């Protein structure tokens, strides 16, 4: 059921022309994927996906829309080549999944070695109930440091790009008006 709603939302995003609707559909997509992630037992990830995708992402995109335009121009190019590329890539990926284990099997290599060690040793080493926080904070703490640095760099980048108020007149637009 959730699968069908997700596919419907994705196809609606392809077809929609008003950009406001496209942004709202992306928020709906994030919310539905958060629901799907809960049924896949990933509660931390669902929490983050719902907060980020249906919260911050919509705010940022709507801010961008107020500073840019609101409708999408109708494209005159043919859509055949992108469809062919996308179908070919999809077929190659499906061929790649033929070797994968069945969904939910308990004896696959990804479930056996490292994960079992983490689940077994968290009560002894760290003694906190949330295994995901234990791995994120303690066993793989260095990765979390790198990720904090990444989000810090993104903040700095946006501040550098959009830091000042918009000045006018612009030199480039003067040159464009001279050209066109």
């Amino acid at each position, binding site marked *: 059921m959730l699968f069908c709603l997700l596919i419907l939302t994705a196809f609606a995003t392809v077809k929609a022309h008003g950009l406001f609707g496209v942004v709202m559909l992306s928020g709906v997509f994030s919310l539905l994927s958060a629901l799907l992630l809960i049924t896949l037992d990933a509660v931390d990830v669902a929490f983050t996906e719902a907060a980020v995708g249906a919260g911050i992402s919509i705010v940022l995109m709507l801010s961008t829309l107020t500073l840019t335009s609101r409708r999408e*121009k109708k494209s005159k190019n043919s859509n055949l080549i992108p469809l062919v590329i996308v179908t070919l890539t999809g077929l190659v990926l499906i061929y790649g999944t033929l070797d994968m284990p069945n969904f939910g099997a308990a004896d696959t290599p990804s479930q056996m070695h*490292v994960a079992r060690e983490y689940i077994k040793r968290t*009560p002894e080493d760290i003694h906190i109930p949330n295994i995901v926080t234990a791995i994120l904070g303690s066993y793989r703490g260095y990765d979390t440091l790198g990720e904090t640095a990444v989000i810090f*760099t993104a903040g700095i980048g946006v501040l550098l790009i959009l830091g000042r108020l918009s000045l006018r007149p612009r030199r480039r637009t003067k040159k464009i008006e001279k050209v066109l």
Partner: protein
Amino acid sequence: MITWEFIIGHLNYWFFIVLMMTGLYIVIAKGNLVKKVVGLNIFQTSVFMFYISIGKVIGGTAPIFPVDMKINNDVVYSNPLPHVLILTAIVVGIATTSLALALIVRIREEYGTIEEDEIFIIEQELDFSNTRSNTDKPIGHF
């Protein structure tokens, strides 16, 4: 090899691949820059769901112990390792999205449009006028 069990077991992977290809199609085929960013977001989210569906165990539960830490050894937990990786990936995803949106705002301010083909035409004309003016004076443009 192609049994009913095989198809049911792999159906969710194929389903997420369909979602991924929809997102990729939006990125390639549509010209509007904001729509491309939305398509990229759809692509990223479906990759995350694909990755987490690998770690699920049927009959398992979320990887959180009970609060009083009385651990029952019969309970099967889903794999917590993909959750950790995807948590990092989501945060990196918003970082890229916000930077992309900031760049789109600046492009709109400089060129007056966010459609890809119009930007291409403007860039070509700017290059053309730059090469023409470079033959007149040796100093670069601006």
